[in-house]
């Protein structure tokens, strides 16, 4: 047996430790910020365990949850990791999994992203817990995330129900001292007991299971009441908080020297008792929580005579991420006690002179070349239907007109084609990992329903945006083994596309030629622009050592040119009436190919 230890861990690493100590047998997931580090951590450490879990990157979150559900039906512990929007994809199995319930503990780690640091929206996963009528645990630190991960399995098994663990960015991506118990549970024995009334959700069975699920609710509420922390004080102010916001409240009351009563709700569904007790003890209630006013709505239901302040009254910001400063301001408005944190005017003036640094595609990113060729052939008039990944940054090059959700580029492309395809060229743009995630059904649908459109697959052989995770077309699995490499071309041909071209985006003329053919072709035309991500290539030592430089033939860009500037390459800048190429150039040669004055050469 290992001894307890204290380690400096990322929240996601603490969760991974919790999963391993809980004796999890199957872990699945799809990468998504801020959840992506859990599976790689387990995969990296697998060799240290006598009986390691099966760990996998699944093709998408729905598949991942179903993999975990299958394992759980066999009595073993299973976990699935994803970001908040991933739960939308997994919502279909989740809603009915709540009816069938589980056997081995099943924990969904769903990381929310307040402030949309790397997401298309800021939805609140606690809402899903209420929607599906399952428990949700809301940790405020990496230590709690670790503790609650282990507890989540016990809870899940006690009530035979899936459990959501919901860290937010400041838990998943916080690094903190965490005390690990070092106590490992054994894997549970695997067996499946046939029981159609339990596992086969035909209507007759579903009606019964729905009743069972509803009967569980009060039991869950009283079980989870023990996770709430109520500290009553002789104060007219009561505060109700949860998750990382509880820490902001703790700091704010310390700074303001306030001593309100504080209730921390760490689990859902909420138990009314503690809330009612706090309300009865207070004249004013301030509710501080990340994302949606989930707790605040409940408090409003129960509030009676107490006055409730929070997101719905405008005292706490309704959108974006909370900060200690935002919480201090809320306390100020409710209590009249403020701390002044004036930023000096001189600093503000200097801040205004700072150059913006928006995210850009890397120097030598193959997507940049694809976008340049795309714009040249399909022009500004085409509709570029985009997707989720690094290539969303193609918006600066004018080749991303929409971004909605994973896989939407292909299916929305069909919709654009149906609506205005006769007048406008429709070009869908998707990455390789996203294509496998949910792009394939859209492609089958487009061909089957006779869409006229072009699909460009930006194949950089990785899931780049989230930190270079493998996927079926790379052949590699989460643990580095290789069972089978899904042949992308075969998949595309099999669904019946009329034209398929594979090009190297660094070769602009070849790429443009393929785009011209696709433009003139019938039905659905697919171009795979294939070139490994520069970051992977750099790590593999596969980059050319040569850089490019600009010669004196570069024309005054104010007068005549600046064509290489339309690449938005971070290596290219303009000064002294001439283009300059910086040290971080990787020598992709795309600017060299487009320069009309032959001014760019190998250094």
């Amino acid at each position, binding site marked *: 047996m290992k001894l307890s230890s204290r380690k400096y861990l990322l929240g996601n690493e603490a969760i991974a430790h919790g999963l391993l100590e809980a004796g999890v047998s199957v872990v699945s997931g799809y990468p998504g*910020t801020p959840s992506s580090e859990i599976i790689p951590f387990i995969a990296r450490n697998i060799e240290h365990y006598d009986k390691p879990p099966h760990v996998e990157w699944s093709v998408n979150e729905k598949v991942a949850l179903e993999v975990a559900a299958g394992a759980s039906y066999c009595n073993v512990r299973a976990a699935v990791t994803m970001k908040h929007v991933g739960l939308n994809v997994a919502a279909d199995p989740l809603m009915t999994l709540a009816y069938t319930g589980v056997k081995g503990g099943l924990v969904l780690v769903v990381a929310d992203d307040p402030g949309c640091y790397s997401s298309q929206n800021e939805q609140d996963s606690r809402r899903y817990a209420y929607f599906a009528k399952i428990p949700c645990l809301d940790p405020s630190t990496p230590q709690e995330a670790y503790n609650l991960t282990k507890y989540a399995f016990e809870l899940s098994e006690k009530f035979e129900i899936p459990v959501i663990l919901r860290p937010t960015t400041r838990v998943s*991506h916080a*690094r903190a*001292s965490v005390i690990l118990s070092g106590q490992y549970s054994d894997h549970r024995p695997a067996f499946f007991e046939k029981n159609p009334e339990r596992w086969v959700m035909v209507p007759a069975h579903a009606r019964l299971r729905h009743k069972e699920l509803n009967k569980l609710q009060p039991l869950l509420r009283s079980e989870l009441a023990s996770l709430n922390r109520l500290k009553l004080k002789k104060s007219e102010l009561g505060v109700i908080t949860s998750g990382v916001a509880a820490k902001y409240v703790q700091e704010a009351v310390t700074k303001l020297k306030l001593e309100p009563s504080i209730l921390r709700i760490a689990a859902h569904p909420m138990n009314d008792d503690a809330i009612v007790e706090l309300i009865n003890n207070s004249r004013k209630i301030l509710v501080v929580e990340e994302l949606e006013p989930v707790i605040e709505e409940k408090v409003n239901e129960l509030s009676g005579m107490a006055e409730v302040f929070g997101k719905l009254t405008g005292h706490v910001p309704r959108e974006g991420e909370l900060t200690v*400063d935002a919480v201090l301001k809320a306390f100020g408005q409710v209590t009249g006690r403020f701390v002044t944190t004036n930023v000096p005017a001189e*600093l503000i003036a200097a801040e205004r002179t*700072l*150059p913006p640094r928006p*995210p850009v595609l*890397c120097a030598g990113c193959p997507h940049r070349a694809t976008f340049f060729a795309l714009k040249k052939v399909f022009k500004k008039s085409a509709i570029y239907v985009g997707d989720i990944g690094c290539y969303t940054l193609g918006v600066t090059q004018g080749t991303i007109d929409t971004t909605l959700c994973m896989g939407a580029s292909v299916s929305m492309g069909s919709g654009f084609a149906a609506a205005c395809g006769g007048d406008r060229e429709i070009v869908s743009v998707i990455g390789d990992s996203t294509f496998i995630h949910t792009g394939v059904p859209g492609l089958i649908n487009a061909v089957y329903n006779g869409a006229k459109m072009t699909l460009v697959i930006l194949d950089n052989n990785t899931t780049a945006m989230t930190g270079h995770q493998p996927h079926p077309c790379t052949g590699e699995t989460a643990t580095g083994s290789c069972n089978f490499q899904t042949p992308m071309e075969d998949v595309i041909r099999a669904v019946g596309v009329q034209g398929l071209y594979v090009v190297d985006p660094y070769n602009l003329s070849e790429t443009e030629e393929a785009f011209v053919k696709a433009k003139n072709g019938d039905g659905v035309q697919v171009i795979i622009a294939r070139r490994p991500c520069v970051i992977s290539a750099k790590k593999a030592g596969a980059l050319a050592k040569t850089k490019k430089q600009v010669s004196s033939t570069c024309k005054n860009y104010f007068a005549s040119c600046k064509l290489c500037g339309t690449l938005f390459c971070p290596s290219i800048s303009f000064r002294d009436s001439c283009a300059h190429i910086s040290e971080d150039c990787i020598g992709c040669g795309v600017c060299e190919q487009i320069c009309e004055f032959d001014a760019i050469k190998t250094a």
Partner: protein
Amino acid sequence: MTMAGDKKFDCIIVGLGGQGSIFASGVLGETALREGFEVISAETHGMAQRGGTVEVHVRIGSSFGPLIPLRSADAIVGMEPAECLRFARYLSPEGTAILNTHVVPAAGSNYPPVANLIKALSASCGRVIAYDATRLALEAGHPQTLNVALLGTLSHLLPFSTLEDVLIEYVPKKALEANVRAFKLGQKYSKRNLSSSHL
């Protein structure tokens, strides 16, 4: 060393993707942990791999959340002058700014004179220690060690005796010598400017 009671040290480490802000914060946090302090930090990188800012809040001896409130950090370490200024509003009026004066230009935008940035910093915090850490890093043997040079400078504000030991454990073997040299050069630089510990 024993737990230091209610002593605390809040520090922002900021730079561009690839400049080593997360590495420096990792060494700092691990050292604090080993020397008996509570430590929590927040890494914000969003899409930083694509050329943006990496901002790390490190809180030593704190039981609060990982984000430092405005105007309250004891120190800011800036790997790049504009990025340092971008987060200087977190620095307390008595705090220390340690920054690299070597500029990384931003494509397509004008860059303000570094002297102006330092002047604005000086007007809003306790003291500013600004030097060309990139040059110091080159002197140490590798430009990439600028983060470690700045960490060396920061070390004078902290009562840690094992910072260098943790650094030696953390850096890859082949880069060890340059990093240790950079750390010592940064440390030496600060001796002229700093004396007492903050914690």
